[in-house]
Every structure is written in structure tokens, then in C-alpha cells.
């Protein structure tokens, strides 16, 4: 079977073959120009470290050659020293531990509530008519503006801080979950129904895994928002916490500490994002 079958007209291998209506074989021959390709960017292997190194270099040059006043931006080595001071004194870990704990708890509560409400919106007309407008109305409410009320309601302890984060995480997560549920292939649901699967099983085995990609991307966004809110949450009576550190550095105009703290927050964001990426890879193994 591997050899071409010998058929009467097996002449394709002869490029000079010229049927009746063909162009004269003496006509000029031009190659077919390439016009495809592109529109498929890839992440270059060392792109992201190179970028960060480049930015660092730029920062170094800008502060050392006086392009930027030292008031406006500390030198990289000052920030590095501030960071080292924090790390060696052990303060960094105390700050980090306090923040991570608040962030983790607030995010879990807010994300869980958001997911449940988002699922309800995605599955029930009643929830869609009542909870959806509430979620949409709550999203643009600035959490810092509500801090005085949060203190009155929940005190200055951990509760109000965790609540600030949870509250901020809730809306985007609910919206993501709702979109995810809405996007679940209804054919799969009909299939499950056609096998007489009970509603509970359909929600758990069809809707939940089907909404998982949306939930994970919601987790990604809401984690970023949670980190942003850390600073707002730690405006109130926080002794430790990266947000508190950054705020007090701002109050003292200690720009080196300020920038160090901001970089820590940014690194936290990147770490969480990488972590979710890893989870995605595992949980969504079934995709591509």
C-alpha cells in the first residue's frame, strides 16, 4: 500500500506535463509569493526577565544621572537597602504574614460568596433579577469611602480588614462566575437531562467544571483587586501588613520603603497569577 498504485494517468510527478488548455510551457515562471504568517505572537523565552532588567537599568540611569530628582524616585540601591533592612530585621516577614493572612481569608470569603451568588445568577431567574442588579450596583462603590462605616460596623480589628477585601473581591468574582455559568454549553446540560441526571448532579458535574475556566480567570482578576484593597484595608489601625508599611512609608515620605513595599505587592500579584496559572494547567488539562 505504501507504493503509489500504478494507474494510467499517474503523471503528476512530471512537472513539465502540459494539458491542452495549459499555458505555453515557455511562459515565464514566477514563484508564488508568501503572504501568510504573523498574527501569532509568542512569549519570547527571556522576554520578561529581560524587560525587568531593562527597566531596572533605566531606573538606575535615571536616578544616577539626575534625569529624575531623588525626591521623586529613590535610587534602586536605596530601595534594595530598604528591602534588605526589612528582610534582615524580620519585619518584612511579619508584614507579609499579616497581609497574606488577611488577603487569603478575605479572598476566600469574597470569592466563595461571589461564586455562589454568580452561580445563582447564572442558574435562577429569581437570583438574576435580584442579585444581578445588586452586584452591578456594588461593583463601582469605592471601598475606601466605606471605611468609616466598616469601622462602625465591624470594628478596627481583623474583621473589618478582611471584610474590605472580601467585599471588593465579591463583585468581580460574582460577575466572572455568572459569565462562566452562562457560557456553559447548554447542549451538555441537555445531554445530562436526557440521561435523567438530577439537577444537583448536573450543577456539580456539568456546570461547575464547565464554568471552571471563567472561575479561574475571575480568581486571577479578583486576586489582583484583593491585593489593591490590602492597602485600603490596612489604613485602619494595622500594626503589621505590607499595605500598612506602604502607607506609613508614604506618610513619612520614605520613598525607598514605599517603593520597596510597592514592589513586594507587585511581586505578590505576579506570584498569585503564576500560581493560578499552575492550577489552570492542572485543572484545565483537558483543554488543548
Amino acid at each position, binding site marked *: 500500500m505504501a507504493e503509489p498504485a500504478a494507474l494510467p494517468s499517474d503523471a503528476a510527478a512530471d512537472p513539465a506535463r502540459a494539458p491542452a488548455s495549459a499555458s505555453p510551457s515557455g511562459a515565464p515562471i514566477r514563484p508564488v509569493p508568501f503572504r501568510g504568517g504573523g498574527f501569532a505572537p509568542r512569549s519570547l523565552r527571556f522576554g520578561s526577565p529581560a524587560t525587568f532588567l531593562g527597566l531596572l537599568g533605566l531606573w538606575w540611569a535615571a536616578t544616577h544621572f539626575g534625569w529624575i530628582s531623588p525626591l521623586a524616585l529613590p535610587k534602586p540601591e536605596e530601595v534594595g537597602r530598604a528591602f534588605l533592612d526589612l528582610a534582615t530585621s524580620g519585619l518584612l516577614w511579619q508584614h507579609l504574614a499579616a497581609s497574606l493572612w488577611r488577603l487569603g481569608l478575605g479572598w476566600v470569603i469574597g470569592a466563595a460568596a461571589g461564586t455562589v451568588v454568580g452561580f445563582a445568577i447564572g442558574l435562577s431567574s429569581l437570583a438574576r433579577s435580584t442579585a444581578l442588579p445588586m452586584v452591578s450596583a456594588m461593583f463601582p462603590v469605592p471601598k475606601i469611602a466605606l471605611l468609616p462605616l466598616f469601622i462602625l460596623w465591624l470594628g478596627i480589628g481583623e474583621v473589618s480588614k478582611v471584610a474590605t477585601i472580601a467585599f471588593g473581591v465579591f463583585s468581580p468574582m460574582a460577575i466572572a462566575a455568572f459569565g462562566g455559568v452562562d457560557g456553559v454549553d447548554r447542549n451538555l446540560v441537555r445531554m445530562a437531562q436526557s440521561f435523567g441526571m438530577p439537577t444537583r448532579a448536573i450543577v456539580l458535574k456539568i456546570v461547575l467544571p*464547565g464554568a471552571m475556566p471563567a472561575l479561574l480567570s475571575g480568581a486571577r482578576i479578583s486576586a489582583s483587586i484583593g491585593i489593591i484593597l490590602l492597602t485600603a484595608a490596612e489604613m485602619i489601625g494595622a500594626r503589621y501588613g505590607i499595605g500598612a508599611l506602604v502607607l506609613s512609608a508614604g506618610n513619612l515620605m520614605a520613598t525607598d520603603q514605599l517603593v520597596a513595599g510597592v514592589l513586594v505587592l507587585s511581586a505578590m500579584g505576579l506570584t498569585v497569577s503564576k500560581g493560578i496559572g499552575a492550577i489552570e494547567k492542572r485543572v484545565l488539562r*483537558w*483543554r488543548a
Partner: protein
Amino acid sequence: MDLIATGLGHAYDGLTVLDDISLTVASGEIVALLGPSGCGKSTLLRMLGGLERPVTGRVEMRGAPPAASLNPLTYVFQDFALVPWRTVAGNVALPLEHHRLGAAERARRVAEALARVGLSDFASAYPRQLSGGMKQRTAIARAFAVEPAVLLMDEPLSALDAQTRDLLIEDLVRLWTETRFTAVYVTHNVAEAVRLGHRVVVLSRRPGRIRAVVEIAEPLDRRREGSPALGAAREQIWELVRGEAAAADREMVHG
């Protein structure tokens, strides 16, 4: 178990899709439903299977389904409807999981169903790794795993290429010869209808009405490409559907 439809009609938001369909599917019989796109074939099948409430008429079952049947009316969907996050075996197991079966019995049913369609080696593959024909075979295995009394198949092969389709038709004929399942087989492919149907029900353009029922006496496993009886039935049906198809194809979908 027989499936009996009486005076079925359906409309979506005032658009009448089906009108006065009466039809009996006897136990062990394959009824092919043929009609142009949009004539309501899928709607009719959904009503037969209890997934859509008929606007007029009713659907009934006569006689008890076999005791082993977990899901008397079982669909095979055009788009396979495989759950992408489950392996082949997981997909076949899905409709068994909410029944009280022992783990061993469940595993046995899955293995048997996969063996029947020749996919035993692919039990732990994900749907994305399968060719179209294998996907559809998985869907068929899933349907057989619940021991259906009636199979409701909605254009089960239309997403496949011609050669693969041909292979699966042979699979289906073999399965029918072995198990004598009952089926309603929706298609808009005349050749397929003639190859698989004991009777071919031809629907008109929307609103779908029964235009004709063609009975084909030749036994399924003896039907061949060139056979004159099949050729005659095909010619007859082709005449019926041709004009309707051309008209339906030139219709704009509003909405």
C-alpha cells in the same frame, strides 16, 4: 417497548414548527426521520424524548422497558455532547453515576460498552485527542451503557466525513443485528435514511408535516450499495425532498 406520538405540534414564540405528527415506533424498529433543515426534526425528537413539552398532542410509551434499562429514552446527539473534561471512560460512566450500581457493575458496563464500539484502548483518552468518528463512537457507547429501550439519534453522523460515516453506519448495522435496539434516527441524508431505516418518515418544509412514510422491506444486514430495492426507495425519497431542500436553502434565518 413502543413509542407512540399522537397529533404532535409545536411552535416557538408563535412560529409553528411542527404540525399534527402521529407516529408509532415499534419495539426493535429503526424509524428514519428525513426532512430539510429547519423543518423541526430535532424538535420532534426532543418531544419524543421528553426534553421539550409539545404544544399540542402527546407522547406515550406502551409496554414496560426492559428491567435493566436505566434510561428508557436515550439520546445520541449530533455534536456528540461529550464532556470535554472527562476521559472516554468517564464520559461513558457519567449517566451511570446517579444510579445505585456497585462500582464493579458500573465498571463492567463501561468496559462492555467501550468494547462494543471498539474503543477499549482509548478509555483514558480525552475527547480532544479523538477523531470525530471516535467521538461519535464514544457517544454511542455512552448511550448503550444505560441499556436504552429506545435510542433517539439526532443526525448522529452528520458531523463526520463521508468515509468515517460509512464505517460508523456499518458499526450501527452490526450493533442492531446483535441487539435489535429500537431507534428514531433523524437525518437529512437520503442515503443514510435508506441504509438504516426500516421505515423512512419524510417531513415537509417548516412547518413540518408527515409527507410520506416509505417502508423498506430489505433486512438491514443485507442492504448493499447497488441493490435495486434500495435504489428505488432512494429515487422515490429523493424526488420528495429535492424541491423542498432547494427552497429551504434559499431562506433567510430571521432572529
